[in-house]
């Protein structure tokens, strides 16, 4: 009996203690929970940096807890879409320029223009113009940039040295210089028709060739976005050169080699000399041990050395339940303090003061030597969404359908350009 009694007393005590501590927490502070969606696009390093960033934010804002929602593998934006549609959106989200056209044209993102203008943390003039405007639509802001990438030319210096060639000279090089070097560096030594080394590589996704058209003073869409101008002489000339690298000059891997092996792998294994790629490739390329490589601006053409710049970013869903705290979070993440934490994982910061400081430029002995090229590329660069329309995704389907055959060499480039121009113009005219 006594035993029972003591147990009962003990139990009661525990109960009182729990109740007390519970109510104390309630009294002490009202913990506000907000949610942040992350698409898992940049791998484990990025996630770790994001977690450190969020921890710092929580430290500076007592009483706010951020819960991370991770996208399931391979479905980066589908889950976010479903969450928004079901009325249970995250309060803020990681974003990138791939889903931006469809999200913004459907009105799924919150207009943050007024908040941005009032912000004390973010001054728009401190950012690179392409970055701060990356998430604008009809002159209004729908997101902030975080990590960027500018496309430059990566080159295998060892290959150039062995061939006795002068390495690429950035924008001092013309397209002719580039083509000549590519032809010299493509070698089929055993004569089986498949080169062992390639001068360069190409890609079929249109943002990669869009910049070649820009460089040749052409465009994909007319300034009013009502016509597709792929049938202009400039665009046709650019596409004939770009696709010709594979089909005419044969200095880029064939479609079948590209499909499974890929120019990226070929570059990393020392079999491809010049490769147009973005700064996002840095962490991977820094594992290269067998040869020396560096970067420089891409060769100039009629309009100089314009290349593509792309920015990941942050946004707030239009029906966020906690837009104030959501804004506070992305304001912190997109501001100077937050951005610094991402530099070490290879990201290019959108803030001039961070990008043009040792935080980014001092690589501590790691390649590339000419890391400044990434920053230089930002000044002339444009984002692929420079030519943004509400029908962006449908346009992408058409362009890949029409140009795939040209890339395979089974359809003349001119014909593909004309067909694409006609189809896209018709699409843009529809409602």
């Amino acid at each position, binding site marked *: 009996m006594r035993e029972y009694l003591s147990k009962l007393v003990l139990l009661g005590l525990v109960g009182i203690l729990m109740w007390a501590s519970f109510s104390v927490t309630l009294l002490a502070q009202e913990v506000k929970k907000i949610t942040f969606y992350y698409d898992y696009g940049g791998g484990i390093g990025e996630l770790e940096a994001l977690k450190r960033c969020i921890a710092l934010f929580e430290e500076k804002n007592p009483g706010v807890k951020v819960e991370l929602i991770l996208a399931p593998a391979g479905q980066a*934006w*589908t889950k976010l*879409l479903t969450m*928004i*549609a079901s009325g249970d959106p995250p309060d803020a989200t990681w974003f990138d320029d791939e889903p931006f056209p*469809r999200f913004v044209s*459907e*009105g*799924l993102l919150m207009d943050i223009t007024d908040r941005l203008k009032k912000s004390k943390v973010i001054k728009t003039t401190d950012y690179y113009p392409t970055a701060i405007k990356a998430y604008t639509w009809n002159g209004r802001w729908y997101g902030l940039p975080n990590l960027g990438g500018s496309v430059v030319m990566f080159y295998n210096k060892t290959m150039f040295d062995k061939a006795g060639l002068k390495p690429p000279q950035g924008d001092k090089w013309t397209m002719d210089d580039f083509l000549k070097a590519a032809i010299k560096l493509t070698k089929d030594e055993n004569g089986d028709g*498949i080169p062992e080394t390639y001068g360069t590589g190409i890609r079929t996704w249109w943002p990669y060739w869009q910049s070649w058209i820009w460089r040749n003073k052409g465009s994909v869409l007319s300034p009013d976005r009502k016509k597709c101008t792929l049938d202009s002489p400039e665009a046709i000339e650019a596409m004939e050169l770009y696709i010709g690298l594979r089909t005419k000059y044969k200095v880029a891997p*064939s*479609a*079948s*080699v*590209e*499909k*499974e*092996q890929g120019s990226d792998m070929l570059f990393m294994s020392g079999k491809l000399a010049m490769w147009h790629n973005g700064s996002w490739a840095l962490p991977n390329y820094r594992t290269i041990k067998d040869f020396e490589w560096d970067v420089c601006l891409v060769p100039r053409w009629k309009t100089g050395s314009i290349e593509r710049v792309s920015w990941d970013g942050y946004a707030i869903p*239009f*029906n966020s339940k906690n837009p104030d705290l959501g804004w506070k979070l992305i304001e912190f993440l997109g501001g100077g303090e937050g951005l610094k934490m991402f530099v070490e994982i290879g990201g290019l910061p959108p803030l001039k003061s961070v990008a043009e400081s040792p935080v980014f430029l001092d690589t501590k002995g790691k390649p590339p030597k000419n890391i400044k090229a990434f920053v230089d590329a930002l000044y002339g660069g444009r984002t692929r969404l420079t030519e943004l329309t509400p029908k962006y*995704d*449908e346009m992408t*389907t058409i362009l*890949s*359908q*029409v140009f*795939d*055959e040209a*890339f*395979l060499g*089974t359809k003349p480039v001119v014909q593909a350009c004309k067909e694409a121009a006609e189809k896209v113009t018709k699409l843009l005219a529809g409602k």
Partner: protein
Amino acid sequence: MSSLVRRRNIEGLLFITPSMIGLLTFIVGPIIFSLIMSFSDWKFTTGFSGFVGVEHYKNLLFEDEYFWLVLKNTIYYTGVGVPISIAMGLLLAILLNRKIPGETVFRVIYYIPTVTSAVAIGLIWRWLYNPEFGLINSILRMMGIKGPGWLSDLKWAMPSLIIVHIWQAMGYNMIIYLAGLQNISSELYEAAEIDGATKFQLFRYVTFPLLTPTTFFLLVTSIIGSFQVYTLIAVMTGGAPAYRTAVYVYHLWSVAFQQLKMSYASAMAWILFIIIFLLTLLQLKLSSRWVFYGE
């Protein structure tokens, strides 16, 4: 009705309530929702904003060239893949219906692709199809043949996918045929043999007719499944090259989740339903001509 029976009924209904609720919320609800959506403009932000009648259906059938392209691709995929996978299933079943050493092992080997996830299958076959290092082209090279680019080749991309489909489906077809074969009474074979039937005649006049119900079942279910293929395409080609391998459901997904035209995609889904429904109806009608249910 006695009170006991009534009580039993109520108890029974209560027992199935959880799964009924699940069915209504996750299956029946969305089906009705998508039907309504297909006749209206539904947006992520505003939800429903008025009915548009049959406009989506009209656009699909008369304006949208991609609709016809993906439909053609799907018919190609089904028309070639289904008959061959059924024939292969029958062949395997006949081969493995005998007492041979290790028959169980063989059956398992042929059945494994059916229970393997389509994502894993897609990834592995992409390796096999690798034009330079893949197993298939390496073997062809040893025989002095230069293999095609498989998945990146305009003409070969769809056949490559169909080959994977056949490989994946024939194990299931085999199991169903094995069950069918074991249902055929051995008396029939004995009687036919006494009458002097050859092996081929045994197959042609005994086995084949008695398997027609099985074949019919497989034909109906395979065609339905094949019209709905998605994962394999998404993993292996994503519609490339030149949208030649984009099948109906892949395109539907792209319209819904990449172009965010949910209403339009719902209309596509209902047209697919009607196509499958009509095809199945037609098969049922035709079945009386060739399916033999005994006696």
